[in-house]
């Protein structure tokens, strides 16, 4: 069982109220995360009125895209009680693959994009097999994959960025405006978030994600092929890696093989700030989206206030601690 500090006898006492209040409490939890987001926004707005103009607003959303996409996939993994450290460098590798297919090989953009996404899926699949079949701890399996992906990105690209200058349609994936004034990447993130929420809440994939994270052994004993589903879940996270790779390279107009490291931690931070528990069994997509927004609002706001990068990291670190502590305190109080 996952940890709960209540004793069974104690629980008996307020079972009914608790059970009825559960959905309410979940709402509240998201509401509180949302409230902190608002507080932060209002704070920056007060500090610098420019913060809330439309172009900065879109800039914030735009900067949320990459971390948000990675965080969406990782939410599934973390709810199973796992972790995925390979998403950052994996994303760089997928961007390189996209570059190789489109720029170096001259394949159509659509093929390159699809190839990059599927390659991400392959990364996730290998993670899943290592974890579910060979029983490697997720931390180790994905740490190894993180290094492999980082190395491969450099090897394949010859350590040089690949520019998509001859394929302007590629950049449009992120920077185009199907909806006026809103970058496509933002629309894509929104669609991905909705799809993720549906997957997590309305499908058996989602149910088994929670179930595995809640008690993997019991799930297996209930006749569910946990091995298969874990592979599926890591592969799904891999597809998100691939999409993030496309989105970031399209936005930059180039595949940067040396970047990527560090994104995994930001994505995990977004998931955790959003109330997903690292021990598994609990979490939500709404929370993750809010978590990702909090991170990019912070980055953006601090930049506008001309606070140096180093200090931004210090503040972000503190925010993570406060967010998770508040989350735990709330659960204890309930």
């Amino acid at each position, binding site marked *: 069982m996952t*940890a709960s500090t209540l004793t*069974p*006898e104690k629980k*008996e006492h307020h079972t009914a*109220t608790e059970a009825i209040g559960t959905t309410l409490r979940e709402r509240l939890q998201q509401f509180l995360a949302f409230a902190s987001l608002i507080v932060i926004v209002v704070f920056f707005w007060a500090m610098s009125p420019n913060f809330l103009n439309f172009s900065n607003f879109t800039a914030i959303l735009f900067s949320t895209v990459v971390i948000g996409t990675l965080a969406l996939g990782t939410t599934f993994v973390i709810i199973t009680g796992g972790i995925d450290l390979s998403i950052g460098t994996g994303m760089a590798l997928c961007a390189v693959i996209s570059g190789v297919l489109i720029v170096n090989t001259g394949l159509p953009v659509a093929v390159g994009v699809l190839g990059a996404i599927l390659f991400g899926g392959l990364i996730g699949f290998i993670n899943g097999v290592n974890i579910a079949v060979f029983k490697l701890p997720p931390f180790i399996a994905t740490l190894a994959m993180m290094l492999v992906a980082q190395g491969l990105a450099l090897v394949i690209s010859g350590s040089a960025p690949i520019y998509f200058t001859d394929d302007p349609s590629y950049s449009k994936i992120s920077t185009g405006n199907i909806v006026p004034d809103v970058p496509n990447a933002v629309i894509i993130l929104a669609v991905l978030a909705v799809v993720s929420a549906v997957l997590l809440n309305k499908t058996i994939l989602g149910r088994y994600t929670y179930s595995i994270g809640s008690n993997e052994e019991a799930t297996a004993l*209930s*006749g*569910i092929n946990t091995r298969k589903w874990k592979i599926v879940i890591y592969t799904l996270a891999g597809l998100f890696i691939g999409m993030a790779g496309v989105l970031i390279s399209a936005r930059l107009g180039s595949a940067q093989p040396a970047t990527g490291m560090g994104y995994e931690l930001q994505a995990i931070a977004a998931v955790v700030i959003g109330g997903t528990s690292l021990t598994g069994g609990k979490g939500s997509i709404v929370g993750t989206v809010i978590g990702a927004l909090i991170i990019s609002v912070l980055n953006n706001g601090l930049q506008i206030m001309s606070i140096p990068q180093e200090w931004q990291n210090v503040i972000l670190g503190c925010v993570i601690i406060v967010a998770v502590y508040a989350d735990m305190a709330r659960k204890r109080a309930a």
Partner: protein
Amino acid sequence: MEQKQTAAGAQVGPLLLKVEGVTKSFPGVKALSDMHLELRPGEVLALVGENGAGKSTLMKLLSGIHTADEGRFFLNGEPYEPQSPKHAQELGISIIHQEFNLMPDLTVAQNIYIGHEPRSGSFFLNERKLNAQAKRLIERLHLSLEPKWVVGELTVAKQQMVEIAKALAYDARVLIMDEPTAALNDREVEVLHDLIRRFAQPDTGVIYISHRMDELKVISDRITVIRDGRYVGTVNTSETTMKEVISLMVGREISVEAKPEGVQEDREVLLSVSGLSTKHLLKNVSFDLKKGEILGFAGLMGAGRTEVARAIVGADKIESGTIRLRGEEVNIKSPADAAKYRIGYLSEDRKRYGLLLQQEVNANIGLSSLQELFQSFGFMKDKAIRAKSTEYVKALRIKTPSIAQTTRNLSGGNQQKVVIAKWLVKDCDILIFDEPTRGIDVGAKEEIYRLLNDLAQQGKSIIMISSELPEVLRMSHRILVMSEGRVTGQLSADEATQESVMHLATLRPDENPEDAAELGLDESDLVATATTTKAGSP
């Protein structure tokens, strides 16, 4: 339901389930050798045996979790080779495992139908149908559950109900229950027995594992005894005595300890609790614990006995009230603090709070005493730990191939004994045992009773919380009865009877105590009389 022929007699009609010459070994352990078992249609077959006899192992073979090394199974006369839990389920075998197998973060309905959830298409869930289906099942089984309750927030007893509902959700032909009543009180046991009787049809059968001898008489048609992984025999329940069954089980005489002598009134009071209240449940709990005394805590599930223990050792926050040790007020903020005051607490939930399942047996036994007994300058004294562990493995008859065995691999009852050993090793003045004999076989229970008596004689004080009333009555010098977070009375060993204790345990404002508690009713006025007249006057 009762069949015409004797247990050993020839069988008319096909057997529902037959186990023939089954053998199963684990590294270093022969869990089953040449085991037999016959389940007839329409019967409840009890399977009994000491801790580690191989009962759960046999059930795990039947449900496809492990595969047998040798031997065969037949289901309705057909060879039966379960490949996986799912496969067994599809063939009509449903099992409630000894340890809970629920997903605490999911709801009751989601747990019941996990793996079989109603879908739209093959991928999308149909949550409404799921809840409706669960509601119907729960009503059919007369359980007090709601489909949308989150399982992790339920009591052990309610979780057990969820397990039962889960097992009965499919059209099972064979229902296997591995110690389903270990965590239940008498009232809940009755609910379960009712369910079993309703489940029993002419073409279904139940295999029922339990260490509670009293209930075998009530629920079973026949009893199969297993010892050291071997088939010993089968008897008709109506034609046997529990004494006979026990002697088949243990293969030796077990000496029954006499009820302990009363403690003199003038003994020093070691622990004195007064006016203890907590936010959620406890209201004005007061009592004294004397040196060398075994104080029994009786009450129904949810009465707050565990809460008292947790409050004393600092695991839960105290709202008001004082705790005095040898007359001096102490402020215990955590179990570690409690340990400094030489108070030990054995939790009722061994899996969650009691054991490091991945660690070796001796690591568990030594864990609580590392600081005091098993280290010098921060280095562990492995040899001493091993010596102590060996001693207690012998004393408590813990069945394990070696003290270096991973604790997870021990049988349920033997894991419980490891927890007990851990606290016996530690030199505490006050020991609080919460359901210490849960899942422990009759023979080993006697060993534990004897050890507790020895400890008391040495001047240690013991609080014993137990849902098994006979055990409390037998072991305690004095019995404190609780109901809904209050002390409703204290009885001396002589006054206490099953009836007098139950009377106090059920003193409450309302027919249904859970509902009352859940609604947050304040019943202070209603039991105040009982509390004030009885509390603090042993």
